[in-house]
């Protein structure tokens, strides 16, 4: 018994530096932010002194139940981000897997080339993309060669789905939920958002390619050969042998992808600041703007906590979907 206690103590002693650092720089700021999200603190002096108004759940209520600009902005940002996540995550995962499969057999040049965008500063790449997608930029010139009149990428607020459908049915524009009409909810990512999506898929797929590549090289060759002897086709070997072996990596890539895409900030900050017509507004950027522009720190942190909750729920849901099933 005595030696067990000593062992425990020693264990805690060893992890103490990490506990202190994590507590000081992660847990404590999070708890402080949680407190701020329950107050009407206006950014003057400390939020922990007497006199800072405590508003309870008001900041959260304004985001969800009160009809107003705050809720509309927040719901718009959620809508934008849902479309963003729904497009980026599958695309970047598929592209990363594809690149990894290609690169797995070939030499280092392509590995470096594909990984390059991931190690370049996202701000620098964003600025380059601003040029590529400008009205007379490379993308539109290529489209012009093909006889297509390219859109004005960063000033076009129309949603892609809205563009395909054309005139909205009245039933959708007259009714809605949570401050937006159904037609607004169903808009799809705007043309401007599509440009940002292209950029993000291109930059992040390199990192995830590296993870897939590491996993691919861990798969024993013998498995593949055994399947070959059994007469499996190339596609069967990929879908029945390689993919199942990649499942843990797939989970990792999807999780990191989900978290990263829900938190998208720097591309938005550099490229569009939420414009045109709020179609690239995301919760992370909205939180920043609400806190630092409107001095509404309570609401800003409330948004970030809702975002946190969304990410946790999505990750749990994904874990549940990808859980080990007993045959």
């Amino acid at each position, binding site marked *: 018994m005595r030696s067990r206690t000593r062992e425990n103590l020693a264990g805690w002693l060893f992890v103490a530096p990490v*506990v202190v650092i994590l507590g000081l720089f992660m847990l*404590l700021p999070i708890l402080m932010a949680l407190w701020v999200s329950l107050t009407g603190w206006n950014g003057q002096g400390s939020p922990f002194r007497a006199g800072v108004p405590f508003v309870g759940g008001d900041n959260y209520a304004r985001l969800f139940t009160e009809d107003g600009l705050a809720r509309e902005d927040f719901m718009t940002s959620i809508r934008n981000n849902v479309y963003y996540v729904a497009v980026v995550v599958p695309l970047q995962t598929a592209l990363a897997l594809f690149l990894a499969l290609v690169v797995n057999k070939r030499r280092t040049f392509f590995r470096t080339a594909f990984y390059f965008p991931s190690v370049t500063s996202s701000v620098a790449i964003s600025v380059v993309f601003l040029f590529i997608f400008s009205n007379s930029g490379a993308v539109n010139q290529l489209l012009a060669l093909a006889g297509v009149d390219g859109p004005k990428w960063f000033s076009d607020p129309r949603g892609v789905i809205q563009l395909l459908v054309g005139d909205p049915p009245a039933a959708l524009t007259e009714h809605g939920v949570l401050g937006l009409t159904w037609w607004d909810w169903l808009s799809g990512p705007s043309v401007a958002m599509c440009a940002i999506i292209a950029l993000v898929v291109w930059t992040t797929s390199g990192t995830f390619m590296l993870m897939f590549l590491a996993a691919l090289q861990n798969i024993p060759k013998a498995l593949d050969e055994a399947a070959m002897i059994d007469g499996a086709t190339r596609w069967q070997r990929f879908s029945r042998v390689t993919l199942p072996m990649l499942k843990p990596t797939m989970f990792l890539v999807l999780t990191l992808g989900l978290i990263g895409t829900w938190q998208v900030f720097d591309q938005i900050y550099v490229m569009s600041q939420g414009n045109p017509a709020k179609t690239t507004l995301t919760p992370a950027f909205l939180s920043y703007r609400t806190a630092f522009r409107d001095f509404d720190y309570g609401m800003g942190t409330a948004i970030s906590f809702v975002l946190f909750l969304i990410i946790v729920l999505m990750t749990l849901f994904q874990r549940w979907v990808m859980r080990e099933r007993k045959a």
Partner: protein
Amino acid sequence: MKSLAFPAAAAVLLSVTACGSGFDDQQAAPRQQSSGPAALQVLMASSGDAETSAVKQAAEAWAKASGNTATVTPAQDIHQQLGQALAGSNPPDVFYVDASRFADYASVGALEPYADKISDSQDFYPKLRETFTYDGRFYCAPKDFSTLALIVNDDLWKKNGLTDDDIPTTWDELSAVTKKIKGVTPLTFSDTRDRVGVFMVQAGGWITSADGRQATGDSPENLQALQYVKGLLAGKQAQFAKALDAGWGGEAFGKEKAAMTIEGNWIKGAMKADYPGVTFSVHELPAGPKGKGTLSFSNCWGIAAKSKNKAAAISFVEAMTKTDQQLAFARAFGVMPSRQSAKDAYLKEFPTDAAFVNGADHAQGPVNAPKMDSVLADFDAGLQQLATQDPQKILARLQKNTESALG
């Protein structure tokens, strides 16, 4: 192992909050430093190297003459840096306050209302004093100001067979002349309230009442203005700068994609630096149904309510807003002095700026009310879609949002 986890974590947190007690500050007024030289911290949002070095020079001169010291720091993102400094109760003594953000700072008590202590404070343009007045108190001294005017490309003007007599002075003339210009877009400006707003002022409307307490967004005057602009856009007589592949009106104008633009006096510097070959002239904006109107932009020298060196800070601002000093700033980085007594001397040196300076008499400052940033961003989003949307709806939205922000 598990049983120890909670006490350990709690101990860590407790020790941490103990360190954090330094956060708590007294609500009472900050104690003023009474003797000895003051060390002023000045935070500026610089437009470029020219401004930074001019302000540093002026600060040094003041420091030498008064026996204090002044450290001038140009900010990367002044709102964020100020936000952090104010939250930490340790703001710079003196800092630039943008007119469009002034009410936010004043309403949370970050600013010291000192402006009436500056000598001859009635000399500042009345419109500028109004811009930096909150709840009836004149808070901070205007640093300088800019207004919008009509910038005309002289070559394109001549090429279209137009003369000086064709320079539009009314909305009707503007409609007429924009129909005559062929080959390029006649008029361009940015798709924000900071440009489209001039038409609202010319029609006699604005987003809020003069004291910033009432929402006046859905007035018939504003509707008339937006319908007029929508008409210009529909006939391609005017196009937003973004549609011409430009970040702002000056860029589209400099690239000669448009014959006219609505911009402020900063365009002189931009044209000289980026498009030296383009000859242009500056004219007052055409008058609307309710007469002349333009918008003004300005910064003031804010003094932190929590500053420990208020007396020295006021003396610093006093030196910075002297007529001679403002003229020196004007020469260095092309701003217009905020004092009426400097007007004649300024016009003598920069006669082509008459249209900008004269704008001061009928210029509307930015919306002077707190918590309006997201409302105005929403209005901008509406204006971006002016070509396809109903102006009435855009204004109704603005009205509803402004009302709820003003409370």
